[in-house]
């Protein structure tokens, strides 16, 4: 079989929405890298200036521009894998192997990406592809929303999904509810964004429903780039139709007719699962025109693979990436609800947010609201990893004490050491330690300690761990992933990394602290997006809990 011509590859995507990423991947997959000729063809075919295309390609970690680059192994140098000697594995794999940021397999380190395969293992000889584990049932037998049906056998197929109540929420929404009632149900439930920022979902849907301009768009944010977060992967791998149903509900509520799933590059297996599920749904008339026989209920979903950039999970950057632009975050206002994909009204929702919608619609706002502790609404999926006996995803009631999760649910420390610190929001929330480990898992409690719950990744460090090294590893991640748009983050993440590594900056504590605090202050106050605002929580919390460790290091 001869390889498909440049012309054919471009033609097959040119008239599709958001064509740049799929065209780049088509060439990248065909040749194993993006050659100069390929980029020139794409530039002409899609009418993108060549300098822009060339530099945009350079933005993405996983687009190789040297022959054979795609198949070269990439070894995770994320916070969890580093606890398991990822550096040694990188060495073992020898020439051509390079480091990459966390690919969301922190529950079974160390992760290696090779071509379209993710391999797990602690040494080169042990590496093997292992599918995402199912989340373990919670010990209290508590009612769940996101994971309520995920363990049902066959759930990932359309048949299995339908057998266990799948698409009944969509049927209910179509047959028994108006779009406005649908929005109201979601609003009343108290569901808030699970991708990090916690914006009330009902309010977002309402804003898009009311915004002028068509067509409207639903974007499922499946970029999950935060180190220590791997919940969306588990959801999509085991419950892909729930994602589709959630998006269809959002479409019904807002009048949107097109949808995108923006999936991170590092989830190739998930990509295949979603593709299959989308085809099944299309064939069954659950996507397309006049869905479920409802006149004028048209909705299509396009799957788009990212190419390796944490910032592309930030919604403005994600939208620019979809549109084929340089993926810098956008200035806000305006917000995506009025000026989203192609400057039209757009819902951007996290995977977990979207899959919460079907059970809420079926079982009612009051049911969901009551899942949380006390006044707190609903549940949150926590990805737990690091020095903990049972790493994995847990759906907890909002407000569950952190200690209960760590000790009762997850079996406490993995090694002989006591727990020392945890991260919050993956890495973005910095560290919690000491007395602050008594928080409950909800924003008010965690924010009162200067951190935030965010997307719900928690990495555990026991007493045997070097927290300055952990902080440096985290700051290196932010520096590598800073998009370079704004000065405080572009320069600040670099300077903080240098100071944590001891490679430049004052050699005594007072001077060190003054510089680090000033950089952190200006980053928090003036950065253009959440990456730069959150990164200094790492140094701030290190100074708060581990000043002696820093001082020892400086000597």
């Amino acid at each position, binding site marked *: 079989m001869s390889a498909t011509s440049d012309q054919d590859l471009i033609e097959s995507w040119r008239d599709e929405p958001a064509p740049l990423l799929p065209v780049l991947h088509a060439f990248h997959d065909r040749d194993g890298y993006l050659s*100069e000729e390929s980029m020139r063809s794409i530039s002409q075919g899609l009418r993108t*200036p*060549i*300098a*822009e295309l*060339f*530099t*945009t390609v*350079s*933005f993405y970690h996983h687009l190789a521009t040297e022959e054979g680059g795609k198949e070269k192994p990439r070894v995770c140098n994320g916070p969890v894998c580093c606890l398991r000697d990822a550096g040694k594995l990188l060495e073992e794999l020898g020439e051509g192997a390079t480091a990459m940021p966390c690919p969301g397999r922190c529950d079974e380190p160390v992760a290696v990406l090779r071509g379209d395969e993710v391999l797990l293992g602690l040494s080169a000889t042990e590496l093997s592809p292992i599918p995402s584990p199912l989340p373990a049932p919670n010990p209290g037998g508590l009612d769940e929303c996101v994971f309520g049906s995920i363990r049902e056998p066959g759930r990932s197929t359309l048949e299995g999904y339908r057998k266990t109540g799948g698409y009944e929420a969509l049927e209910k929404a179509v047959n028994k509810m108006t779009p406005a009632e649908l929005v109201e149900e979601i609003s009343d439930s108290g569901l808030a964004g699970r991708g990090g920022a916690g914006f009330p979902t009902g309010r977002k849907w309402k804003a898009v429903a009311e915004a002028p301009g068509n067509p409207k768009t639903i974007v499922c944010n499946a970029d999950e780039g935060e180190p220590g977060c791997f919940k969306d992967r588990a959801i999509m791998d085991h419950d892909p139709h729930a994602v589709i149903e959630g998006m269809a509900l959002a479409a019904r509520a807002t009048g949107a007719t097109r949808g995108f799933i923006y999936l991170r590059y590092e989830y190739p297996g998930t990509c295949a699962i979603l593709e299959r599920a989308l085809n099944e749904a299309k064939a069954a008339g659950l996507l397309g025109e006049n869905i479920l026989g409802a006149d004028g209920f048209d909705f299509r979903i396009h799957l788009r693979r990212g190419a390796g*950039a944490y*910032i592309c999970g930030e919604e403005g950057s994600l939208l620019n990436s979809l549109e084929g632009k*340089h993926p810098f975050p956008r*200035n806000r*206002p305006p917000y995506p609800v009025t000026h989203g994909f192609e400057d039209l009204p757009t819902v951007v929702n996290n995977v977990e947010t979207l899959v919460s919608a079907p059970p809420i619609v079926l079982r009612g706002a009051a049911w969901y609201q009551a899942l949380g502790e006390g006044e707190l609404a609903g549940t949150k999926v926590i990805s737990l990893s690091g020095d903990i006996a049972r790493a994995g995803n847990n759906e907890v009631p909002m407000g569950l004490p952190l200690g209960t999760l760590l000790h009762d649910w997850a079996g406490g420390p993995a090694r002989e050491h006591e727990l020392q610190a945890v991260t919050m929001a993956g890495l973005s929330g910095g560290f919690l330690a000491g007395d602050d480990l008594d928080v409950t898992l909800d924003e008010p409690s965690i924010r009162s300690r200067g951190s935030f719950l965010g997307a719900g990744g928690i990495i555990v460090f026991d007493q045997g761990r070097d927290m300055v090294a952990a902080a440096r590893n985290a700051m290196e991640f932010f*520096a*590598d*992933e*800073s*998009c*370079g*748009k*704004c*000065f*405080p983050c*572009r*320069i*600040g*993440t*670099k*300077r903080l990394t*240098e100071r944590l590594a001891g*490679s*430049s*900056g004052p050699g005594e504590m007072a001077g060190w602290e003054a*510089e680090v605090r*000033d*950089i952190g*202050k*200006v980053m*928090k*106050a*003036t*950065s*253009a997006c959440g990456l730069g*605002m959150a990164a200094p929580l790492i140094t701030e919390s290190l100074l708060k809990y581990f000043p002696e460790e820093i001082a020892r290091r400086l000597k």
Partner: protein
Amino acid sequence: MIEKDDSRTMILDGVEVSFTPGETIYEVASRSPGEIPTLCYDKRLDPFGGCRLCVVEVEGVRNPVASCTTPASEGMEVRTSTEAIDEHRRILLELVASENRQIDVDPLRGYASQELTELVDRYEARTGRFEGARSGSSRTDDDNPFILRDYDLCISCYRCVRVCAEEEGDHAINVLNRGFETRISTEFDGSLKDSDCTFCGQCVQTCPTGALGDRKAMRYEGEPGNIEKTRPICPYCGVGCSIDVMTRDDRIIGVQPAMDGPANLGALCIKGQFAYDFVQHPDRLSTPLIRGEDGELHEATWDEALDRAAAGFKEALEKHGAESVYGVASGRAPNEAAYTMQKFIRAGFGTNQIDNCSRA
């Protein structure tokens, strides 16, 4: 319902000011005294929001906002300079200075080349704090005669990239890599002459650090004497761009675009920007020349020359008819002159053989 009076008011540093919906805080503030510092801003370009120096406090909003990107809104209360804001600005400038070679460049490098230096001085940010790796890397290998690419001085404000795309439509350069590793690059990181660059010099003139330099003007760096600026219209074409011709001792040493030129608002093309050497070139003709009986060219007055040309035209017309005349109007002529030219050929000679040279 369309409202007749579109103006709104907001409070700026305690004073009520009016604005038109759609204006940014910065645009409103730029009409009042007190100067909000900026580095990534060029009023001709879409606001970018990169440098964050323009941050201001808005009542009721937790974090400062970038005034260049944030729209003004009714009743908004804005403080453009407070202790906290000024401290943020100083720290930001200290950070920028730390990634830079921290040298002061000659103003001949470009129109905006002193912006960083001036701000660093204004905020007393030459403190040497935050030392660490430098960013950028100069392209000493790019030996084009017009544009110095001294990226050691680059602060990644991307004004050059944006002016090239938004004003010039050339998209010759863009942002390579990300984070601290960002660099300005052409396609495949080559030289400007192997790219879509037209050498219009727009990027040079908007660069706030002198990382991009006007190589032709830089030939005269460091020479004694004052530089005088004169504002003519570029002589090359009918657009009529205003330029500031820089002279020292009556010698042209460079051209900068007039940012307030009504036809160009700071835009120029390679000709207006760089092609002025002919003005004082020794080979330039300064009087008409007429070829004499001896076959040599001799200096003549304009009257003699025009008489001679008219005689030649007449002779051709009498001997060979109107079809022997073909007029080509110069692309440097404005519409009015081009109109007169075609009238001259059509009505004067009775032929439609009239053309213009602008077909390169």
